[in-house]
């Protein structure tokens, strides 16, 4: 019956991890896209460089959200306390 509580807490924590882990990257991606739009409006001729850098930067930012997702999946599928 102890495992029952651990399962419950793990699921709640996994949901919390993903939700809070999504907030930061969402704000950061919004800022970077708006900055890229600014730069595009000022210098449309640099569009290829800007968009390439933007994509790489977005993928880097997204990584933090992916880390949270991996932690959540670890809690759900590979929980060290549920053995």
């Amino acid at each position, binding site marked *: 019956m102890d495992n029952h509580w651990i399962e419950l807490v793990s699921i709640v924590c996994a949901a919390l991890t993903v939700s809070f882990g999504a907030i930061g990257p969402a704000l950061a991606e919004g800022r970077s896209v708006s900055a890229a739009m600014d730069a595009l409006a000022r210098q449309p001729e640099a569009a290829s460089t800007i968009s390439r850098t933007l*994509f*790489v930067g977005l*993928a*880097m930012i*997204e*990584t933090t959200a*992916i*880390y949270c*997702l*991996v932690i959540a*999946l*670890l809690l759900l*599928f*590979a929980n060290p306390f549920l053995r």
Partner: protein
Amino acid sequence: MTNSPFKHEVLLHLGPLTITAPVVTTWGVMLALVLGAAWLRSRLSVRTPGRVQALAELALDLVQTEMRSTMNADPAPFLPMIATLFVFILTANLSGLIPGVEPPTAALETDLALALAVFAAVLGWGIRRHGLWGYLRSYAQPSLLVLPLNLIEALTRIVSMSVRLFGNIMSGVVISTVVLGLAGLLVPVPFMALELLTGLIQAYIFTVLAMVFIAAAASESSEPE
């Protein structure tokens, strides 16, 4: 509940070895790449370049330009490693589009192996450039106080590179599976298109990071005598 992304389907046992699905897919991807490269090589010609050769030369030129601008060095010594990494990761990521095949990069072990290969390359080029003692000493630059930080950085690099690739590819697989279960046929197609883009970008990022790390180890000129 869907299957755990950390456990893999065991296909067969070879003595003490258990062969899982990602291993088979990895070897399949490697076989396809080697056969494709051998076929392309047998068709190379200086006089009458075919279409495939023109395409391959275009891609090679693109990779070399990219490497030159990222590494600020002659790309020739690093080209085999970097280009192979990129082609392998790209093929592995996109192999998920074949029905019934799960991309091998959606297994944490594959990504860890790739990150360890990059780490070994960083060590190798650093030692070749500075000598063993000189390279080890570069971890304690500028003072001995930063030694633990540099060691932790070297370790977290491996973890972050492998978890980044794993998380992105695996999340694509999980999302496709969940959407397929919820909505059914043809609905996951836009998600698979997104997965295509993610696979391309993640292959690019992994390669760029490998380039940056290797270039930093191989060309660090701030060498106090």
